[in-house]
């Protein structure tokens, strides 16, 4: 119960989300005076409200409340069932109350206050103002006050009696602050006034219509798939939010809420650690306390809050509560640096030389992403790095404005709360105030993680240096040359980062090239490795160590100035970098002094970037070209830092050159290796063109659907092949079907499809059979054996393969695979129509139609020679060919006349029967039996040549003729490795057949040019009568025999005569020769 009289706070749940504050107010007005209505809506991820409730502050009597409960509770209103309960008091109210109580309590202890006042009075008499006494010798006592002495810098401090630990003899030790260093905190209590008022505990993000500020307020745009890295940029972007939030709210509000008891009871002066006054707290606290003391800072700040608050303030606070809550939630989201990546996120690489990327808990994604672009095989969304850079830039600029110094402190506390991803952003800001944070950071990172990424350490380290440099310049303005300051403030951090990025990449590349194994996470192990590769990283490792030392011993300012100089040196060194010199052992570096090492570090940052920038750019030709960016920024840096450059000692310069040379050599070597790698890559890529790696998975053809795609893809290839087609076509003889050719050219995709449909049917032994069958019907369209006949083909195939021993297993496996796929289909519920059978077919299709010429493939050499041949054939050759083709008919003409003339007379009676039948060959079994004694081929050829002249011409010309001559070489056809022998034979067969048929077609064309109806057969077609005659003998067998006997006898005589003549000649020749010899 609270102290506001009859004021009660009611919870009203189950509201419809359309309910407004006014609605509620009207509804509750009749029970009492409604002071405040606070409406809350819970929304899910998509922003759809799913729960609405309200808190109502109402002045209500007990009876009214009861009435209200009975009336309204569980009543239905606007589609929801109201639920009314007494709510707990708002925490802000309670806070205010408890503060009030504390204040009351405080008043009771006014006696101590009075005592203190007395002390202060006596001090003021003695001339002490605000704990400082001017113009007093340190160590002198404050007059009138026992145990208070003036310490260094005129500050008045008490002499302390410290109780000793048990072991020592003396019970107490007197601690005189004037005799010791000034490292003590003031043990004073706050004035109650100094605490923050309750109003200041909550906050509100300022408005603004842009995206970011909306997000800060917790208003998100409708859900859209997050791009990889987007969330990563958020922390950087909202640094400002961070600082503000941290400063005003995160700490205080949170602590106040959750540690409330501590605030109310925690005013024990002895235990409270006092911080400085609010005004100078931000700067001074950090000099007094290390980063590790930050939790105490939290507490201190929290205790500084005021105890008294007006009701108005509270009221306004309560009104602002909702937004604060939302913002808090958002805030919480921001701090967890969970990165969400898209489905298409590419894993960098499995296991090869990735130790560089192997970052520890603190190692930032930023560096990782930055390191990525240089490595060529690793693909990455290109935009994020640039985005981050810009973010950082913005951030840096913001930081450099002096007003923001305060913001940096809370962010350091952030750092502790979330040690990971947001670090890069925060580190910079934490650097701004004190160097000790830096040192601590380094200590942390190196100590805490055994698996810390070394290059990351290096980079992070250099980062600190750059930034702290800039900040220090700001801090110690008077001592630093003004030119440098103005130049470096906004940019010194940034180019440094670019440069560092470059510096890392060579290491990485080298490491990857050398192929060192990636699996070790041991830091030392890694360090050794990196030492082996480059000296730069070695230097940095020493650098970190020495820097820690120096930081402990030296004043920060001094060191900073050193670094500044060193940076200038480094740049100068960079200019000397290209002059060749003798190699130097990297170990000598370690022995040199800390200052030098710092210098080296700087140069190490800059040098590799300059030496390797060109090749970097080469590498990143396709990439967003951060290399060029970095180089430009480097130039900027150079320009800026040129004025303060200091002349170098000769010795130093020498050393520098040596180092530079070393680096140059390393870069050269590296470039060589890169080139080799590049070559290998290209080779690999070319080798894998036809069979893409399974990881990409996109180009693998599984179904016939894909196949079409494939054809489209390769249509370009076909285009290139087309002239080849045409060249071959023209010499093939008189063109009968120009139209079809043209069609072929135009809609070649479809045509190809239809063409290649035929092929698989004629595959394998079963296919051969089918082919045979088809050939029996000639090339008649109507008797074409197509896919319907494939069914028994498969059966046949199976039976055939049962007989074959080794093929059995494969078939079983195939079956298994098929089964697996079908199961997979059922499991996934999607259509997985890819069976291995079709896949194989598709492959063959591709081999023929979508032949992708690959010079690195051995199989394609056949193709290569083929194409060359075609190119060699000149026009003259083609003409010659054509002439030959035209001559050819004459030869066959004679044969034709010879045969037909006799046939007509002899086999007149068979014509009647065969004329009815459409196919001559099948119709006449007698002729078949007669002729079939010979080779099958010849039979077929004879048949087509002799008999079905017109029909053959009709069919073959239409479908296959354009390709026939071109296909003469079977090698060309089966560039795929899987083609079987049978297929070859088959093709030969086909080719021969078609050649002959085409020849025949020409004959017949010349013979029967007057025939108007070429494609039709009427029952009284004279061709049907004539044709069969060609099959039959023109004379009786006896006649032939007689004829033959006559002929043989004459021939024999002739032969004998000739033989005799020849012998005689030989003899005479010998005689003459013999006489000559004698």
């Amino acid at each position, binding site marked *: 119960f609270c102290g506001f009289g009859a004021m009660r706070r009611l919870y009203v749940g189950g509201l419809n989300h359309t309910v407004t504050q006014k609605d509620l107010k009207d509804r509750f007005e009749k029970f009492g005076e409604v002071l405040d209505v606070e409406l809350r809506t819970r929304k899910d991820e998509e922003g759809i409200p799913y729960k609405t409730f309200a808190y109502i502050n109402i002045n209500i009597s007990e009876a009214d409340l009861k009435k209200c409960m009975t009336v309204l509770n569980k009543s239905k209103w606007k589609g929801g069932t109201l639920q009314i309960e007494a709510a707990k008091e708002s925490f802000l109210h309670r806070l205010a109350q408890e503060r009030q109580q504390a204040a009351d309590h405080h008043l009771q202890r006014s006696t101590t206050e009075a005592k203190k006042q007395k002390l202060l009075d006596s001090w003021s008499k003695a001339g002490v103002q605000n704990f400082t006494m001017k113009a007093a010798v340190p160590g002198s006592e404050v007059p009138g006050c026992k145990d208070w002495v003036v310490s260094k810098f005129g500050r008045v401090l008490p002499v302390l009696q410290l109780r000793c630990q048990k072991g020592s003899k003396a019970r107490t030790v007197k601690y005189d602050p004037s005799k010791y260093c000034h490292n003590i905190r003031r043990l004073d209590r706050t004035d109650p006034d100094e605490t923050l008022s309750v109003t200041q505990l909550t906050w509100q993000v300022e408005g603004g219509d842009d995206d970011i500020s909306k997000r800060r307020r917790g208003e998100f745009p409708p859900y859209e798939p997050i791009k990889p890295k987007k969330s990563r940029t958020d922390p950087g972007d909202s640094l400002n939010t961070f600082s503000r939030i941290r400063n005003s709210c995160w700490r205080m509000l949170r602590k106040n809420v959750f540690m409330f008891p501590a605030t109310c009871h925690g005013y024990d002066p002895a235990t409270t650690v006092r911080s400085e006054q609010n005004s100078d707290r931000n700067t001074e606290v950090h000099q007094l306390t290390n980063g590790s003391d930050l939790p105490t800072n939290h507490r201190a700040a929290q205790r500084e809050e005021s105890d008294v608050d007006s009701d108005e303030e509270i009221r306004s606070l309560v009104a602002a509560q909702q937004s604060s809550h939302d913002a808090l939630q958002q805030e919480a989201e921001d701090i967890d640096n*969970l*990165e*969400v990546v898209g*489905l298409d996120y590419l894993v960098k690489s*499995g296991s090869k030389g990735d130790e560089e990327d192997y970052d520890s808990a603190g190692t930032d994604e930023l560096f990782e992403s930055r390191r990525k672009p240089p490595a060529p095989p690793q693909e990455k969304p290109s935009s994020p790095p640039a985005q981050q850079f810009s973010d950082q830039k913005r951030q840096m600029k913001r930081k450099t404005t002096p007003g923001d110094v305060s913001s940096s402190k809370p962010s350091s506390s952030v750092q502790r709360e979330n040690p990971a991803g947001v670090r890069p952003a925060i580190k910079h800001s934490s650097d701004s105030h004190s160097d000790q944070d830096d040192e601590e950071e380094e200590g942390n990172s190196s100590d805490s993680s055994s698996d810390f990424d070394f290059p990351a350490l290096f980079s992070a380290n250099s980062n600190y240096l750059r930034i702290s440099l800039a900040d220090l310049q700001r801090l110690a303005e008077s001592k630093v040359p003004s030119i440098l300051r103005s130049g470096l403030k906004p940019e010194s951090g940034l180019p440094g980062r670019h440069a560092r990025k470059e510096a890392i990449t060579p290491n990485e590349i080298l490491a990857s090239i050398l192929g060192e194994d990636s699996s070790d*996470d041991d830091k030392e192990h890694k360090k050794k490795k990196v030492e082996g590769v480059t000296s730069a990283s070695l230097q940095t490792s020493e650098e970190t160590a020495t820097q820690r030392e120096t930081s402990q011993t030296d004043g920060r300012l001094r060191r900073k100035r050193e670094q500044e100089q060193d940076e200038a040196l480094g740049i100068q060194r960079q200019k000397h970098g290209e002059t060749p010199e003798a190699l130097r052992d990297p170990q000598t570096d370690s022995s040199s002094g800390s200052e030098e090492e710092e210098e080296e570090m700087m140069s190490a940052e800059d040098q590799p970037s300059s030496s390797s920038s060109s090749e970097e750019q080469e590498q990143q030709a396709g990439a967003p070209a951060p290399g060029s960016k970095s180089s430009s920024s480097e130039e900027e840096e150079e320009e800026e830092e040129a004025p303060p450059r200091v002349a170098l000692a000769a010795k130093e310069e020498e050393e520098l050159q040596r180092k530079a040379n070393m680096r140059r050599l390393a870069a050269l070597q590296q470039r060589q290796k890169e080139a080799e790698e590049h070559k290998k890559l290209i080779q690999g890529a070319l080798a894998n063109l036809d069979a893409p790696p*399974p990881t990409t998975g996109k180009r693998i053809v599984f179904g016939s659907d894909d196949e079409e795609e494939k054809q489209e893809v390769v249509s370009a290839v076909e285009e290139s092949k087309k002239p080849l087609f045409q060249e071959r076509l023209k010499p093939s003889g008189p063109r009968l079907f120009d139209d079809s050719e043209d069609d072929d050219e135009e809609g070649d995709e479809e045509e190809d499809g239809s063409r290649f449909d035929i092929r698989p049917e004629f595959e394998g032994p079963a296919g051969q059979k089918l082919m045979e069958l088809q050939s029996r019907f000639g090339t008649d369209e109507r008797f074409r054996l197509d896919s319907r006949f494939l069914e028994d083909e498969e059966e046949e195939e199976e039976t055939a393969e049962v007989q074959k021993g080794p093929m059995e297993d494969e078939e079983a496996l195939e079956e*298994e695979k098929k089964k*697996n796929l079908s199961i997979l289909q059922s499991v996934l519920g999607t259509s997985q129509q890819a069976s291995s059978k079709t896949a194989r077919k598709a492959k063959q299709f591709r081999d023929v139609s979508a032949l992708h010429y690959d010079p690195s493939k051995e199989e394609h050499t056949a193709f290569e020679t083929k194409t060359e041949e075609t190119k060699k054939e000149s026009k003259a050759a083609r003409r010659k060919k054509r002439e030959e083709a035209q001559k050819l008919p004459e030869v066959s003409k004679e044969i034709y006349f010879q045969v037909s003339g006799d046939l007509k007379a002899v086999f007149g009676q068979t014509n009647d029967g065969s004329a009815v039948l459409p196919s001559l060959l099948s119709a006449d079994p007698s002729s078949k039996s007669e002729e079939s004694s010979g080779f099958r081929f010849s039979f077929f050829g004879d048949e087509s040549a002799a008999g079905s002249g017109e029909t053959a011409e009709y069919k073959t010309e239409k479908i296959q003729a354009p390709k026939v001559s071109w296909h003469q070489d079977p090698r060309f056809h089966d560039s795929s490795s899987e083609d079987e022998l049978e297929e070859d034979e088959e093709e030969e067969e086909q080719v021969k057949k078609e050649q002959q048929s085409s020849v025949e077609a020409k004959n017949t064309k010349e013979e029967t040019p007057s025939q108007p109806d070429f494609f039709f057969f009427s029952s009284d077609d004279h061709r049907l009568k004539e044709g069969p005659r060609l099959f039959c003998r023109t004379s009786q067998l006896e006649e032939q025999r007689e004829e033959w006997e006559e002929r043989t006898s004459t021939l024999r005589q002739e032969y004998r005569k000739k033989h005799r003549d020849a012998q005689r000649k030989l003899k005479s020749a010998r005689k003459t020769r013999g006489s000559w010899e004698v």
Partner: protein
Amino acid sequence: MRPLTEEETKTMFEKLSKYIGENIKLLVDRPDGTYCFRLHQDRVYYMSEKILKLTTNFSRDKLISVGTCFGKFTKTKKFRLHITALDFLAPYAKFKVWVKPGAEQSFLYGNHVLKSGLGRITENTMQYQGVVVYSMADVPLGFGVAAKSTQECRRVDPMSIVVFHQADVGEFIRSEDTLT
């Protein structure tokens, strides 16, 4: 050693599909040769046809392992994935989770992945979706099951479990004797 029955295949594919979805197809129907699953002593092995032929030279009781063990069927006929399958599943994994280096060790000792150790996660990961766990250096470390969806992962407190441990490469050492 025998081919898997239909039921077994289905069980196994259901499990695998939690991790690699329809990419199982790429395992079954490989362009570089014929590969198959074989059951041997309740374990499922994935091997090429060539190796399959070679195994015919050994008697069943003498054969310990062949090819790559994908997992085993429990007595209750459920399929349990072994870490040895990681090499084949990691490249095809649809949903991935990256653990921070600090949490790597914990995971490799067989513990679940906590929110604090979660470095990166594939978007739109559903609850109870099988995931492949990677280190931040993209080295596959094992399998897990998402305990929370991606959206939930962003909200939950750092000590809550986001990925249930299934198998990790630490098992190569921890359960060396049972892992074949």
